[in-house]
């Protein structure tokens, strides 16, 4: 179950990245330590999009309690 949820998170990040031009990430590259801003170069609008998409899936606004920087922190916030 956890692995599935984490896979879903990665797919959502991937979706947001694909819409960047040029796209920055491929699936294998997103790891726990991947930094959303430094490694994937997501800007504030892209991070906001990510939050909303994750909220649709998990019903949690990940930025509610402060800024999230890495993929691992998303997992923690979503308790997955």
């Amino acid at each position, binding site marked *: 179950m956890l692995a599935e949820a984490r896979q879903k998170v990665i797919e959502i990040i991937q979706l947001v990245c694909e819409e960047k031009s040029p796209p920055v990430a491929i699936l294998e590259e997103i790891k726990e330590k991947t930094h959303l801003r430094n490694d994937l170069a997501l800007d504030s609008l892209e*991070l906001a999009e990510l939050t909303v998409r994750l909220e649709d899936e998990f019903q949690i606004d990940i930025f509610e309690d402060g800024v999230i920087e890495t993929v691992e922190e998303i997992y923690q916030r979503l308790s997955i």
Partner: protein
Amino acid sequence: MKSLFLVDLPGGYSISYAELLDLLRQQKGCNVILRAKHLRPFYQHLILAMINDLQVYLVDEDFELPLALQEKENTNVLINKEKTTKALETWDTLQHSLLHSKATLSLFTSGTTAVPKQINYPIGRLLRNIRIGSKYAAGRWAFCYHPAHMAGLQVFLQAFLNHNLLVNFFGLDKPLILDLLERFRISHISATPTFYRLLFPTGQIYDKVQGVSIGGERSSPKLHARLHEAFPNAKLYNLFATTETGTLFASEGDYFVIPKAIQSKVKFVNNELLLHRDLLADPGILNPEQEWYQTGDTVIIDEKGRFQFAGRKKDTINVAGYRVKLVEIEEALDQIPGIQQYRVYGRKNALTGNIICCDVKLLDPDLSIATIKSLLKENLQAFKVPRIIKIVDEISMTHTGKIKR
């Protein structure tokens, strides 16, 4: 040591006040349509226009000028040589000239119709908010706003007229921002809540920062607490400003108190903030018989009559401090032939306040979301392009037959 005026890392340069004066002395004419692409030329032309009491138009990079103004773009207006030379003799003469400028700044704002309203702003109105004196002489500013918007202009004037340093932070990422805060020993930051939220956690404290102002969006006690942590020696100010009025209210907490002097000129109707025409920079934006201006800003009022900024009425939404008119996005969608119907709306999030989303009903089943986005990008600034587009079979309507927002 030369005192620096501007450091612009993305632009790859820095310039001192002495160098700026030299550049200004060499300039023969001045543009009156100022697009905020690069800071240095933008400010050079703005300063010359102020010396010469000209009317200048400050516009976004992608703004489409009204037809009557298009011919002014990229044409040099002659300046009064004698007056300009005199003003540029020394820093003191320049400061004096700018403080007495009769220039008019024209900005465009989105009103209740699709046509942008031109607001003519006598510069004297803006200068009234500027504080000058030895107390402000050592300021080192992080510049975090769009230079052609009201907040950016106020920061520029406050810094420039006090011979302060401006460091461009607009659009930079977190590691660079934190590095610059330290490297340039920044003393003042004025930015939107979104800008600050993206800095946390800062990992260290910045005790040289003395002033932190927040404006453009609703802030929160949580944000204030985090700002106090990161900038323990800074005084926090909440600012409430609009393009139509400039800065109107300032507070040190979450709630704004209406100053006695303008109490009769401010009222609330259905939680919307209304301003008397006397407070407007350009009352010409109202019909002559209209006494009150509807700001579109909704507020929460407490028992003591203080108020807090709650958000925007539904026709305009706030994305990371920018006001986005939904009708502008709807017009861009109208230009795409394969779309039959759409619904544009905001989705709340804790980072940027809102993001723009839209549902579309297609005429052309082959039209992809990626194509729609790229077509919209041609006509809209990035923060206005819907981030999440969904293709739907039916668009939901309200009971009055209007498309829901």
